[in-house]
Every structure is written in structure tokens, then in C-alpha cells.
């Protein structure tokens, strides 16, 4: 079966990153349609009826977010694109930003019109400096053609976009930490409520949407909500870009209907496991998600079905591990990431993440006691229960799932100073 390329359709076409290429592929038609034929509230209703959920990880209904923001009586509002793609295993926004930036610009302009705001900001991670420069050029091209600026396409609507470069902080992908970063602060999550839709950037109503979410908007406007609902599952309509990495033969971005099952994702699209090896585990939603194992091959990948299977869809990043993977080592890699990225404010996350690394290191080197395996699980329970924000709550997910499913890997490191999966490993 071919992919269902809607968001990725322009990728690979000539000059897809330039407005010339974009216009040739029907670009800015949706914005014309929106400004010429639709009222802002009609667009909000359309996006609500389509059932689009945020593609950044949380899966919140986009139309509802827009409605909350649009109905706030405060005058100055913002639409912010979260391009701080940092979840390990995720590389879907990168391709959209680098090769189809006008899709994002058009989606943001439509969102701005629907919500009633004149200012858009793209918060892009510092590591994506190449994409950031490209976006600046694309914005310039859109301004020159009158798709951004004053009285866009002759309508009573002014809108412009600014690119804001992050500086290396995973936490800024969390929307309230992102807002702090935009305000010239260290990125640290805020208490909710108030929600950003009412008190966001500079305490003004702010909608924060992911790149993939905003790129979906023009397709919904041009093809309608019923078309969108026919794709994917009834609970999660539309397509999703799945970023597949790790031990598969063909790692890459695959756009498929929501609800595509794990078996198809790995074997039909990503070319199966490398070297004819056996599948061991997959982190289905980036490094924050608990792993799935071979028994889960039939699980449909959408927000609800993955939650029912005890994990999460997150950003749709599948990190695939084959039978040669040392789960202690893999766990250590994930744990180090969270230790480094903890913002340091709340104790459970800051200290818990550090202690998990500490203990895993000693297990990896065969220096720990067996009881320390359960100590990690206990630490994890505390982190989940009492961390301030989702980073700390999700930090131990992968490690605990590795312990639960592959306890032998951990025990053999300690008991026999060897790794059952990686024979070459010198414990």
C-alpha cells in the first residue's frame, strides 16, 4: 500500500521550499478561500467538525483551542507555532519546515484570521538554524506576494510572522515553557490554569500549535471536514506523519492514516527489522513513551488506542529496537537525556532523573545490587506522582517499561556481569 501523502505531498517536488514551487502546487488557495468566503467562526467550526487533534504530542482538539482563544475578550492575541521539535526520535517537523515552509505560513495566516490576531511567531529550536533561515526567506516571499502583511488579498485582515530562535532546551517544547522562553526567561512550565488561550505570551490570549497541526489546516479548508474524517479513525481523524528510526531497514517519515497498526508501520513501510533480526521493542511516541513489545503488533497507532495499550502516541516517533539491543544501555541513553533536560526547578524530576542515571550506570557496569532495580521503579512512581510538569512525569516511562518487560537484561548485568542481548558487551 502506498502512503497517504497529504502533508508530505509537496516534499521532493521542484522548489517546494520556494513560493514559486508552492504556488504551482496550489499554494495559498486555502487562504484565499478563507478570506474571501468564510467567516472566522466558520473556520473554527470547520476545524472542530474535522476533529483535528494537536500533532505535537498532547492531542488536544485544535478547533476547541482556537475557539477558547477567539472568544477571549482581550484584544491583542497571538498564534504561535511550536517548532521546537525535540522529542528524541522525532524528525517530522524538520522536513515540513525545510521543504514546505509555505504550508506552515498559510496555516498560520488562516489560524490568525480564525482566532482574530495579527501576530504570529514561529518558535524554532536553535539546532534547526538552517530551517529558521529558510523560514525567514519564505516569510519574505509571502510578504512580497501579499500573503502576509497589511490587508492580505484585499481583505480587512493584517497578519505577519516572526521567527524566534530557541537555544537548546527540550523543555521549551512544552507550551508554557516556550512562552517563558519567548519572554526572555529560562523555559520553565507554568501553573495551569490560566491556560495560554486566555493568558499566554505577555499574559495575552495565545494559541500554540505544532507545525504538523498547522500544516494540516489548508487541506481541511480545501477538502472539507467530511473528507478529513474519512481518513484515520473515528476518534482521531486525519493522517499522521510517523517518524520511524532505530533498527529498521528503511528509517524515515511515513504519512499514513491515524490508526495504522504497528505491524504495518514496521514491516510494510519501514522495511522490517535490519539484518533479518527479531523485533524486541519499540518506543511508540518518542523517548517519553513506555515501550511496546511483540505482542502489540496489532495495536492501532492513534491517541486513544495507544493509551489503551498502556503507552502514548506522543509525536508519532517510533524508535525500534531489535534483539541485539541492551535494554540497560538503551534505558541509560534515555535517562541521561532527561537528566540533562530537566529544568531543575522541582525536586522529584531534578533529583529523580539524576538518581535513575546513577543507578542505571551501576547496573550497566554490573556494580549494583539486585534490589536497586526496584528502587528505580519506586523513584519513578514518585516522579510520576509529584513532578511539576509533564517532563518529569514522563521521564521514567521508558526505563520502567524496559525493566517490566526485559528484567533479565537488568538482572544478568548484575548477577553474571554480562548482557544477554549484547554478547560483545564488556560489563
Amino acid at each position, binding site marked *: 500500500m502506498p502512503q497517504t501523502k497529504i502533508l508530505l505531498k509537496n516534499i521532493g517536488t521542484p522548489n517546494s521550499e520556494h513560493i514559486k514551487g508552492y504556488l504551482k502546487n496550489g499554494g495559498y488557495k486555502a487562504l484565499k478561500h478563507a478570506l474571501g468566503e468564510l467567516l472566522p467562526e466558520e473556520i473554527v467550526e470547520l476545524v472542530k467538525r474535522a476533529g483535528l487533534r494537536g500533532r505535537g504530542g498532547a492531542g488536544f482538539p485544535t478547533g476547541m483551542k482556537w475557539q477558547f482563544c477567539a472568544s477571549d475578550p482581550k484584544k491583542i492575541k497571538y498564534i504561535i507555532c511550536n517548532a521546537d521539535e525535540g522529542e528524541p*526520535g522525532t*524528525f517530522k517537523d524538520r522536513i515540513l519546515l525545510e521543504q514546505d515552509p509555505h504550508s506552515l505560513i498559510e496555516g498560520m495566516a488562516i489560524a490568525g484570521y480564525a482566532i482574530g490576531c495579527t501576530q504570529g511567531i514561529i518558535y524554532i529550536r536553535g539546532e534547526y538554524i538552517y530551517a529558521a533561515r529558510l523560514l525567514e526567506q519564505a516569510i519574505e516571499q509571502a510578504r512580497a506576494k501579499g500573503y502576509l502583511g497589511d490587508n492580505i488579498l484585499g481583505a480587512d485582515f493584517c497578519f505577519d510572522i516572526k521567527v524566534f530562535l530557541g537555544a537548546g532546551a527540550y523543555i521549551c517544547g512544552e507550551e508554557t515553557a516556550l512562552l517563558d522562553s519567548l519572554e526572555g526567561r529560562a523555559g520553565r512550565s507554568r501553573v495551569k490554569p490560566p491556560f495560554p488561550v486566555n493568558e499566554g505570551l505577555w499574559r495575552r490570549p495565545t494559541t500554540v500549535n505544532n507545525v504538523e497541526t498547522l500544516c494540516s489546516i489548508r487541506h481541511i479548508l480545501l477538502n472539507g471536514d467530511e473528507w478529513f474524517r474519512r481518513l484515520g479513525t473515528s476518534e482521531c481523524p486525519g493522517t499522521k506523519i510517523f517518524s520511524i528510526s532505530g533498527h529498521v531497514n528503511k528509517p524515515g517519515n511515513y504519512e499514513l492514516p491515524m490508526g495504522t497498526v504497528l505491524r504495518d508501520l514496521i514491516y510494510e513501510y519501514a522495511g522490517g527489522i535490519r539484518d533479518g533480526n527479531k523485533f524486541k521493542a519499540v518506543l511508540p511516541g518518542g523517548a517519553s513513551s513506555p515501550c511496546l513489545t511483540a505482542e502489540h503488533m496489532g495495536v492501532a497507532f492513534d491517541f486513544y488506542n495507544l493509551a489503551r495499550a498502556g503507552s502514548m502516541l506522543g509525536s508519532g516517533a517510533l524508535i525500534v529496537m531489535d534483539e541485539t539491543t541492551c535494554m540497560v544501555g538503551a534505558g541509560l*541513553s534515555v535517562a541521561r537525556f532527561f537528566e540533562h533536560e530537566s529544568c531543575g526547578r522541582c525536586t522529584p524530576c531534578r533529583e529523580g532523573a539524576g538518581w535513575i542515571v546513577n543507578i542505571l550506570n551501576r547496573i550497566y557496569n554490573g556494580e549494583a545490587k539486585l534490589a536497586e532495580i526496584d528502587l528505580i521503579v519506586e523513584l519513578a512512581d514518585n516522579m510520576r506522582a509529584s513532578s511539576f510538569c509533564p517532563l518529569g512525569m514522563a521521564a521514567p516511562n521508558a526505563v520502567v517499561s524496559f525493566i517490566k518487560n526485559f528484567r533479565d537484561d537488568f538482572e544478568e548485568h548484575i548477577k553474571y556481569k554480562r548482557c544477554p542481548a549484547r554478547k560483545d558487551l564488556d560489563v
Partner: protein
Amino acid sequence: MANIAPKLPDGLKKEFEQIVAQYEFKRGALLPLLHKVQEHSGYLEQDILVGIAGYLNIPQVDVFEIATFYTLFNTRPVGNNVILVCDSISCYLKDEEKVFAQIKRILQIGSGETTSDGKFTLFTTSCIGACDRAPAMMVNDKTFFKLTPEKITDILKEY
């Protein structure tokens, strides 16, 4: 901090004014200003951080916090080229450790260190969104993909 004389970088006065003018609330210009300084001098000197605090009329401690909170900001001098090797899970699964070991062997430095000729500074970094082409690293603004120990030798020669 109190005994550091505030300073603004030479030759960036105009750029600073242009950046700040874009922000309704001056503090919003802080990250862009720090990016500008680093682009200009390679790292953020203490006296300039103090200078920026005065320039934006915000507490010095806030500027120091931000300069150290964000990984991409350097508060110490770095070499002419900064290498960021991704050590997150997808790169780890594709033998990033061997690549990193090769870089350390060739350059004779560890993470966070600069070569004695001032040519390279080496860091590990969190995921850089190149997982389908792992293992990956950045040298300055450029990303290199599908690395092997052999490729490292060639890439480093280019600098």
C-alpha cells in the same frame, strides 16, 4: 557579579537597537541579543552579560541564568568550530558511541573541551532531529548524517 564592569560588544550597537525595536516588551529581545553576541564573538563574556542586563534593564542574575540554562549558549571561550554529537536514543542505537570515541581519539579531547590549537570544541547534544539518518552530528550550523568512524576522519579534515 557586582565587580564586573558592564560592557556592550563593539560594533553591534546598531544591530542591538534593531533587535530591541522589534519587541514591544524589551525583555523579549534577550535571547535574540545573546544569539547575536555569540554569533559575533563565539561565546558570551561575563562583562557583556552584565552590559545586556543594564541595556534591557533586567536583573543581572536573570541574564546569567538564561546564558547558562540554554545549552547552545557558551559562557566560556570555544574553538573556531563547535562539534555537537547527538547521543540520544536513536543515534545510540546506531553506534553513536563508536563515532564519538573516534572523534575523541582524533582530537585528543573529551566532551566540553577544546583542542590545544583552538580549532575544535566538542560537546554531546540532545536529539537534533536527524534520527532517520543516525548517527548524526552538527559542526557549527551544518549537520552530518549516517556517520561512521571512517567518515569522521574525512569530515574533520575539511575544517
